[in-house]
């Protein structure tokens, strides 16, 4: 067991982990931050995406020890300080960008990372960026639409809610 410390959603945390403990299990099992989901074992599905030092990272593909000293952001820390949904979260609700909700934390975290580097992405850029995030419910239509809306683009021309 090795001690690991990091800042998660602005709060300093630490814990004893095995060398093989993944960041995703540190968040879920040690910190009870169960909003970060694990949907596969090959780093394909993206349900576990979190931010590490501002970058989108698949937390199932990073050891907890690798995040020692890092600033980690998870879905639990995304809402506005008053608890209301942030712009991306609100757009996902407004445009029905989620159904079962399992991929959603990863989608929101990826969308946030995308909009940070590209504040007004095209439809094609969004679809390309989301290659690492699988959703089985929505057919992606409303996810792409929600991210376009969150970036301030008019989506009223896109057929059907």
């Amino acid at each position, binding site marked *: 067991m090795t001690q690991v410390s990091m800042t998660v959603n602005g709060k300093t945390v630490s814990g004893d982990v*095995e060398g*093989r403990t993944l960041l995703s299990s540190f968040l*879920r*099992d040690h910190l009870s*931050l*169960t*909003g*970060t*989901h*694990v*949907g*596969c*074992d*090959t780093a*394909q*599905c993206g*349900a576990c995406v979190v931010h590490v030092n501002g970058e989108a990272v698949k937390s199932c593909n990073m050891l907890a020890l690798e995040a020692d000293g890092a600033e980690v952001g*998870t*879905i*639990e820390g*995304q*809402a506005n300080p008053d608890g209301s*949904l942030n712009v991306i*979260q609100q757009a*996902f*609700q*407004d445009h*029905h960008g*989620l*159904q*079962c*909700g*399992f*991929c*959603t*934390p990863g989608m*929101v975290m990826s969308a946030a990372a995308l909009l940070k580097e590209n504040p007004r992405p095209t*439809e094609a850029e*969004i*679809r*390309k960026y*989301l*290659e690492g*995030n*699988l*959703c*089985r*419910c*929505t*057919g*992606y*239509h*409303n*996810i*792409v*639409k929600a991210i376009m809306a969150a970036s301030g683009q008019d989506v009223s021309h*896109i*057929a*059907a*809610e």
Partner: protein
Amino acid sequence: MPKDSGIGASSKRREDVRFLTGAGNYTDDINIRGQAYVYFLRSDIAHGRIKSIDTSAAEAMPGVVRVFTGKDFEGVSGMPCGWEVTDKHGAPMQEPPHPILAQGKVRHVGDPIAAVVADSLEQARDAAEAIDVDIEELPAVLDMKAAAEEGAPLVHDDLKNNICYDWQLGEADDDKVNEVFANAAHVTTLELVNNRLVANPMEPRVAVAEYSRGTDEYTLYTTSQNPHVIRLLMCAFVLGLPEHKVRVVAPDVGGGFGTKIFHYAEEAFCTFAAKACNRPVKWTASRSEAFMSDAQGRDHVSKIELALDADNNFVGLRTHTYANLGAYLSTFSSSVPTWLHGTLMAGNYKTPVIQVNVRAMFTNTVPVDAYRGAGRPEATYQLERVIDKAARELGVDPVALRRQNFITQFPYDTPVALTYDTGDYNGTMDKLEQAADFAGFPARRAESEARGKLRGLGVNCYIEACGIAPSNIVGMLGARAGLYDAATVRVNATGSISVMVGAHSHGQGHETAFPQVVADMIGIDESMVEIVHGDTSKIPFGMGTYGSRSLAVCGSAMVKATEKVIEKAKKIAAHLLEASEADIELKDGQFTVAGTDKSVAWGDVTLTAYVPHNFPLEVEPGLEETAFYDPANFTFPAGAYACEVEVDPETGQVTIERFTAADDFGNIINPMIVDGQVHGGIGQGIGQALLENCVYDENGQLLSASFMDYAMPRADDVPFYTVDHSSQTPCTHNPLGVKGCGEAGAIGSPPAVVNAVIDALQSGGKAVDHIDMPVSPSRVWAAMNS
């Protein structure tokens, strides 16, 4: 003008807030103090005889609580099948045992051989590696036609062969069918494969079980679409537990698509082990395990023949299908290639003579059961592909050929056992032609061709039987369950309402849509109504969510229970208003004496129900009603879909350029949610048509066992979709006039995609009339260059 609340409004989903903030409660988020972890040792051999299992080294490993093998379950019933199909000679299907842990033989890669319970998952996994299993490998049974031959190796030694049943529906007189085909002006024949799929809800399956010695009670938390069904099957057929001592909870569930309907061995194991180990036990599937243990979908090999007369009227249809059931009968597997498939072969067309033949096979593969659409996509794909091929052979417009043969009079008795209550297939096709802009297609094709691409337009129709199902009918057909549903409407003293429903929401938005109905009926704000689902201890009973049934069946129960509540509330209101009950009207949450300005508010009546100082003596206090609803018929959503593709003639790459769905779902409660359901179905249908394929090698090894190898549709594989559901013929036999929308997209889209690809290739002068799904670049390129 769109409504802003109640029935017909696109109310935003209230459940989204918890999912968007990480506050959902999925089964893997549940941890019970003191829990141990289960790891299943699964077979890496498709077919073999277990000679010995030595668990002694594993038992001595650190943290190991106990190691279980099939021996621990001798005398315990195996996993049951919920539907007995009778073959065409009147004999029951062959029904082999399905043990919780393998006994004697392993029959597919992933078949669980042993289970290790340990203090941590890592310890359980490490110990499983120390289990010494000696298996004599046997030839794997994989090809369905070879498996049916005399002398083929047997998946189940105690069965006479690998054929579960030979089943037939429709015209039983072969001579009559032969005559129709002999006299036909034209016969189109097509052999095709409906590719095996893996449902892959994003949340893998999980089971957490605990047992209380003090009360002799069990609680199972599980990723299920139907917790009551799991409790019933597990208690009555597997473990022999008293149902009233078992609570099954399906909390937030991360997608189902059919594969979370079934009662799985892991659920029974965890419940059993929780008592045997006197500790809570938890099992979480990895995605690799999901590929090897979740029931898979489709996998039909069919030959379909369509007979037409000289005027291009359909006069006969005959199909022969081999359906793969895998190694064991999963819960509803036997019903999928039969009553959910053969019955849909009439499609939207008035073909007078239909004969459906299905041979269901056991093979050394993962069990196959219902996956979104379940039998209906297989029927639609065959029918809509053969019609398209016929149109091309005859040189007629595929849409015109369909229109000419549409059923236009309702109710309509098909030759394959269904009675369609209502529909307007021409009207729906009109909507499609508009929404998909057929008129603009030639210009779009010319533009594609100018860029060196081939462009195709594929159209098809579908019909599905949903809202399953009338219990008396399915009982006659072999179902071992009734398929009604139930709801309790509990009005609290302050007027807010909890509705306990037997349906389960795992993405469908019941928590939002169901309150729209109740609130609308009473005339109160939607926020005053809350849906409770997924917990057998809170809900009277329920058969769960599948077959696009939730609103049509459970929603009807909810309407009935709400009507009972209103009826009683009117008695109380009449008493308070000193008026006759018959004169009381309820509108906008106010009870009014008709023709007067005397009224009392909903909240005053509900408070009186619980503080009955001034109360009619003949009425019981309280305001809570339960209703069960058993549908009178199936519902019949139908639609017409159009897909436009571009094919790169250099590489065979297919790109979906446009996809348009025109659906008739009857009345609609929440259009936003309905659109979302269609989008998701189309996404999965495009996945089946272009990308997804579950592949076993010649030894029965599962080659597509991860997201690295099984091609799930990704955001850049699909376009924005156009969805039109303005064609609405309300269901005639349920109170809301609703039909169900959950599966339509997955049923209607695969043939549209393949028809479009064939159209594109033929427009480029390629003599290609069929390509099996998935229509991958290599298959397209090979077809173009053969």
